[in-house]
């Protein structure tokens, strides 16, 4: 597999692989994750509106007012704040698993799976516990 030799090429040329593999991914994910979060929030609200108006016979205005009541800035803020931390964690988990990835195609799949498990499942669990303890 090509992936591994690319990292070795960095090591041999005495270019620290961290600088070129890890560092650019970190700010990129920290920037993109909140955007993705906002996008998902909007789509969620829009989806809710479709169901409420289309199937539950609510008026759009009613939905809008109720949504404003139900969703506070705390919820949105928490979500966006969490997404920034997620950006860092996903970058770290992805790079960690990616750097240790084996040499064949199957290893790439395994590395991707374990990175997802590490990044999302493990860290989301930690967030759930923290929010629960803080009562927010």
């Amino acid at each position, binding site marked *: 597999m*090509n992936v591994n*030799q690319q990292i070795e090429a960095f090591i041999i040329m*005495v270019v620290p692989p961290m600088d070129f593999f890890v560092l650019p991914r970190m700010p990129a994910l920290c920037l993109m994750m909140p955007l993705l979060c906002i996008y998902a929030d909007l789509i969620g609200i829009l989806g809710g509106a479709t169901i409420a108006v289309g199937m539950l016979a609510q008026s759009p205005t009613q939905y809008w007012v109720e949504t404003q009541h139900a969703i506070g800035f705390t919820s949105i803020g928490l979500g966006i704040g969490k997404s920034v931390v997620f950006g860092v964690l996903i970058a770290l988990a992805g790079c960690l698993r990616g750097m240790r990835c084996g040499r064949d195609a199957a290893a790439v799949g395994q590395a991707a799976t374990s990175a997802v498990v590490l990044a999302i499942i493990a860290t989301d669990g930690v967030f759930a516990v923290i929010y629960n303890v803080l009562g927010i």
Partner: protein
Amino acid sequence: MPDDRSVHIRVKGLTMAYGDYVVMRDLDFGIRRGDIFFIMGGSGCGKSTLLRHLIGLNEPASGEVWYEDVNFTTASDEEREPIRRRFGILFQSGALWSSMTLAENVGLPLEQFTPLAPAEIGEAATLKLALVGLRGFEDYFPSEISGGMQKRAGLARAMALDPEVLFFDEPSAGLDPVSSLLLDELILSLRDSLGATVVIVSHELPSILSIADDCVFLDTDVRTMSARGNPRELLANPPNESVHRFLTRGRSDREGGASS
């Protein structure tokens, strides 16, 4: 064995192993400065592993690798750095960085280790790419060009810093006979212009017999090197049966069968 030039790389009692599995033991040879040195042997005999030991990607189970008067095996990362900086390596698959264009691939080592301005780096990268016949492909990504072109681009990157030692891992694997002949000529002209020591892992007989100055033959049967010297002389005067079989593509068996 003529030894008119100084030994550049010396391998002393090297044993290579993956865990308990010994790949090759007791390798002992020197590579003279400016030579084109082949590491040859059958598939899976540990040629690439030996190369990885020479450049420090694998650590020996026992034995040492020396670069002139520096023991590379026991050296710390800081001590290895200046030696590695004079390496140029062409990996088997090219190993170009897939997220960068060819010019960026070639330019990165220059950017890291020379005080050149970005415009000069661009010019230098174009020049190196032109040397391997890739003029006009500066802005292509590795995935957009053919395997042979990737290999040539890898070569351009390997020689970006005018290295003292060039390592090639199966340079002609996956190339057609004509391209691999052109690559051989390129390697020869590079050695002559840079004065670099060239270490090549290969089992391509035409290349071995045409451009090698010296070689070592890794023999899977005895798990160590069983021949050493100029391959043309080895062919004329084979020290043992497995070398003869290798250099004649197994023809010695048939001749033996015909004469008996």
